[in-house]
């Protein structure tokens, strides 16, 4: 019997692009609300006057906001198009054949920061599937899919590189279970 990864036939997708997307301009309102949600009280995220006097000279977004600055492509759908879980798409899982034969959870992340996201920025993300591995977990086979996302702003400056590993396990009702 071959490995789960061989059955899925996914190894050939390593190194392929997962799309390039550019977001709408970052809104001050979103940055402010985001900083409230994470309860980070640094005034550079929500007070233009304090931000002007800071080293940034204007409002910037909290560091990890860069991973949301483009929005999630395909996530904004009408209610009739959503699954019962509320989702139209899932963050971090590449669109490869039979990807939903597995159930996915976030495994780990690695992010390197270069420049801050500022209000008004139009951020572009470009993704590549960089690694797929099979492992033996406590309750069976696991597939680890790692994607790398490079974020740049409208001036072509690199903002961050972000590696995300998703862990997939066969769904009980799928053909590969």
């Amino acid at each position, binding site marked *: 019997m071959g490995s789960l990864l061989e059955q899925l036939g996914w190894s050939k997708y390593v190194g392929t692009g997962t799309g390039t997307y550019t977001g709408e301009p970052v809104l001050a309102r979103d940055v402010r609300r985001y900083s409230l*949600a994470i309860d980070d009280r640094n005034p550079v995220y929500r007070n233009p006057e304090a931000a002007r006097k800071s*080293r940034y000279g204007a409002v910037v977004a909290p560091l990890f906001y860069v991973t*949301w600055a483009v*929005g999630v492509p395909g996530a*904004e759908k009408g209610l009739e198009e959503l699954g019962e*879980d509320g989702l139209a798409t899932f963050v971090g899982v590449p669109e490869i054949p039979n990807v939903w034969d597995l159930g996915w959870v976030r495994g780990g992340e*690695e*992010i390197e920061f270069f420049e801050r996201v500022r209000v008004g920025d139009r951020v572009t993300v470009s993704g590549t599937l960089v690694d797929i591995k099979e492992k033996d977990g406590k309750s069976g086979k696991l597939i680890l899919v790692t994607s790398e996302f490079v974020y740049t702003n409208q001036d072509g400056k690199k903002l961050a590189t972000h590696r995300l590993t998703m862990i997939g396990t066969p769904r009980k009702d799928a053909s590969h279970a």
Partner: protein
Amino acid sequence: MHDQFYFQEVTEGQEIPVIRKDVSSVAILMYVSTVWLMDRIHFDHPFATLRRGLPGVVAPGNMGGDYYAQLLSEFAGEEGQVRKMSFQFRNFMLAGDVLEVGGKVVRKTVVDGHGLVELELWMKNQNGINCVPGKGVVALPMRAG
């Protein structure tokens, strides 16, 4: 806020100032609505527990990334810079959890004139469980002379 940390004054093994995070259901709702993350496990308790078998409403793992970004940004101060961080999701952060987010200096190096501090990071809930272990790299300013 603490005074600015300088590279020369930080020692290996030193713990950095912790932050405490109240993972309330309101905070989770603020987060998922701001970023448009409509996964029902983040706001619908019966769905999360009865349908998905989760121990409660779970916070998006992403929020852990934000908590570490804040911890490291506050350690870096006005003159420092957060360079990198990485983390693994080991245990759920649940609505109602109170997290202690902290770190310890494990290594200091000077690269191209920048003082880099490597840290081991933790995010412990009220039961002492490290939900999201991690690592970070921060550049601290050097004292002249």
